[in-house]
């Protein structure tokens, strides 16, 4: 039997180790999921405004500043936890927040925003979840970052937390430059 065959484990082992090293050293986020929307124009949508049923919120919102589209609901407990960070984001200059109220009751949402504070410049109503489908929602909450050209640059799944806030905001800062 050829002895050289025992070199195979040595080579395979070091190949694997180098791949691991490479991945550890480059800047990457393993929880980032690819989305069909990234780098594409934000999907067309039309939503009734929560506070004024006559007004329609649509893609005309995009274009002047960076827009965060945040899907939320009052029945979703993680959204409640996330809310303080959404508020924090709303205080930053050059960012507009659009809330999409997912499968909820208007009255309850109004009360909820009254109590918790309303960080959104506009809130659209997605009663039957059809906007969520167009945007490819995984779960709720979920936040999309749309740049000045109306292009989706970043998608964040799940609640923004104390831990992830910084990283999330750095993504937005990148766009501001």
């Amino acid at each position, binding site marked *: 039997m050829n002895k050289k065959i025992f*070199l195979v*484990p040595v080579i395979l082992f070091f190949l694997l180790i180098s791949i691991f090293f490479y991945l550890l050293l480059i800047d990457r986020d393993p929880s980032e*999921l690819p989305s069909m929307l990234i780098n594409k124009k934000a999907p067309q949508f039309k939503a009734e405004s929560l506070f004024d049923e006559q007004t329609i919120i649509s893609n005309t919102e995009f274009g002047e500043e960076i827009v965060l589209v945040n899907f939320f609901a009052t029945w979703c407990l993680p959204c409640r936890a996330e809310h303080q960070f959404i508020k924090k984001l709303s205080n930053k200059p050059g960012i507009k927040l659009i809330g999409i109220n997912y499968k909820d009751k208007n009255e309850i949402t109004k009360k909820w925003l009254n109590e918790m504070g309303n960080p959104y410049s506009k809130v659209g109503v997605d009663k039957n979840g059809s906007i969520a489908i167009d945007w490819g929602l995984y779960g709720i909450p979920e936040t999309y970052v749309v740049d000045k050209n109306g292009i989706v640059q970043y998608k964040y799944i799940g609640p923004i937390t104390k831990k992830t806030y910084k990283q999330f905001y750095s993504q937005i800062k990148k766009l501001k430059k």
Partner: protein
Amino acid sequence: MINIVGNTSLYLALLLATFQTFSLFKTEKKFIKRYKFFVFGSLIFSSIAFFSLMYGYFVSDFTILNVFKNSHSSKPLIYKIAATWGNHEGSMLLWILVLSIFNFLIFKLCNKKNLNYVYKSLQIQGFIIFGFMLFIILTSNPFQNMKSLQSEGLGFNPILQDPALAIHPPFLYIGYVGFSAAFSLAIATLISQTKITDVPWHQYIKTFVMIAWTFLTIGIALGSIWAYYELGWGGWWFWDPVENASFMPWLLGTALIHSLMIVEKTKSLQIWVLLLSILTFLLSVIGTFLVRSGILTSVHTFALDPSRGIYILTFMAILGGYAFILFFKKSKYFFSEKYFIFLSKEGSILFNNFLMVIVCATVFLGTVYPLIIEAILDDKISVGEPYFNKTIIPMTIPAILLMGIAPIFSWKKDTLKRIIRISSPKIIATIILTLSFLYFYKFINFMGIIGIFLAFWIMSNNFLNLIFKAKGYSKETVLAHFGVGLLILGIAGSSVWQEEKVARMNVKDKMKIKNYTIIFNEINEIKGQNYVAIQGNFLVNNKKNKITNLKPEKRLYPVTNIVTTEAAIHTSLARDLYIVLGDGNSNDGWIIRFYINPLVIWIWIGVMFMFAGGLLSIKKNLNKRKNA
């Protein structure tokens, strides 16, 4: 105070491990004296470190950063204690403690004949302890002080607040770390080359592998039980990277136990056993690396920290690089030109060994493939359940068929005629059992029938072998193998015939699934020790009678603001009824997921059989050595 005690013990243990790795000795007496000191010292200091952290959790000492981050005074006592190893730093401390225990056990092997051999093994084991201890001190010290005074901790991930999970890591670590002993012994064997013909190194390895395998088995099962009861996804295995990380050493460990039998009997296959010993432990370390470095995401990922990943990876490169190069250089001394006949005990064991290794390689590929693709093509892909089911199930079918009859094969050479004669009652028993099962359950599904057939095949073979006292087939093996049969029954039943129904229900609504009617009675708010919850109350009836009231919960832990789902499960020998309360409100109703999981309980019973078989084998092995 605790911080000082803990930190000091960490450094002292590190010092002792360094000595253990590099110390020389002149006489036998000096060796025993010196190494006794190192080995006992390591054990004592790592115990002190571990138990002082546990004490910190016990008294909720929030001056320790680790306790502050992971505990809360409102937490039930058992979870305070379990929190010691429920976080990255503490779990590494447990890892070190188990390493030191195995270090001690290796030292216990020492006698006049094997002195040099044990010395070399202890050097390797000492180096492993040194590596992990340095890792703790440099990147994951659990005894860091809090900068400010805090009266309350941050709590800990409530998903981890579960009895099965609380005891799962200690068992798992005895498994993972037990393989370190096999690794050290295998390396010492390679270094010693042929000088050790009078040292029964394969018997030593076998004892350690058995301990590791037995505890890894129960450790994996406990993790699985946790996933089943706590995650609320209706399943018990998800091919999650971390599950795979524990499954791979298990597969190789299983192969290792069986090939050690051949070494014991025929002295061939030594080279294979040595390679498996090295690979099994390295896979355990790779498992740790995958979980701790945050290189991939999984339900178990601990706090992400790339510097930790780089450290473990470097350590692994040194350890593995050394082992493989040594193996390359020394393997020729252990090579035997011997061929096996398939129809013999050793031939069939070897065949199954190869299948296990291929299955392990397939799991490994599925786990790291997304990483390789990302590194080379910068593309993100995910490998999921379909890959594993499609590749692994076909490979395990021949392995299980062979597993049923191989134990009664003769060594060296057997005849087909004899095998058929002995097996025919078992084949008949299997067919009768399978047909009556299908008649009773009326489940017709190709994969399911194969699964049930294999389960009964293993069970009837083992049962009849036990009754007829088959030669060379120990009771311990029968027990463990019978457990595998039960396990297959549970796996086949629950994966092929699972029924699922999702519905939006309001209070007083009714839902039907198969023979069951579910009535949504009420929904209430309740208060637990450190959480608040909404609890649904569902009445489950079959056609005639009431079966049970199921009360699934959705809990909110205010301290960490985390929501968990608690599935409610009614278990019988035939099926589990599994209900999960989803999102909703009292106006629009609640999303309810209801599963019928047939035969799940047999998975856990099967594992208990395997565990018992393993424990009895360990006992038998130790007795044999005592008498020898």
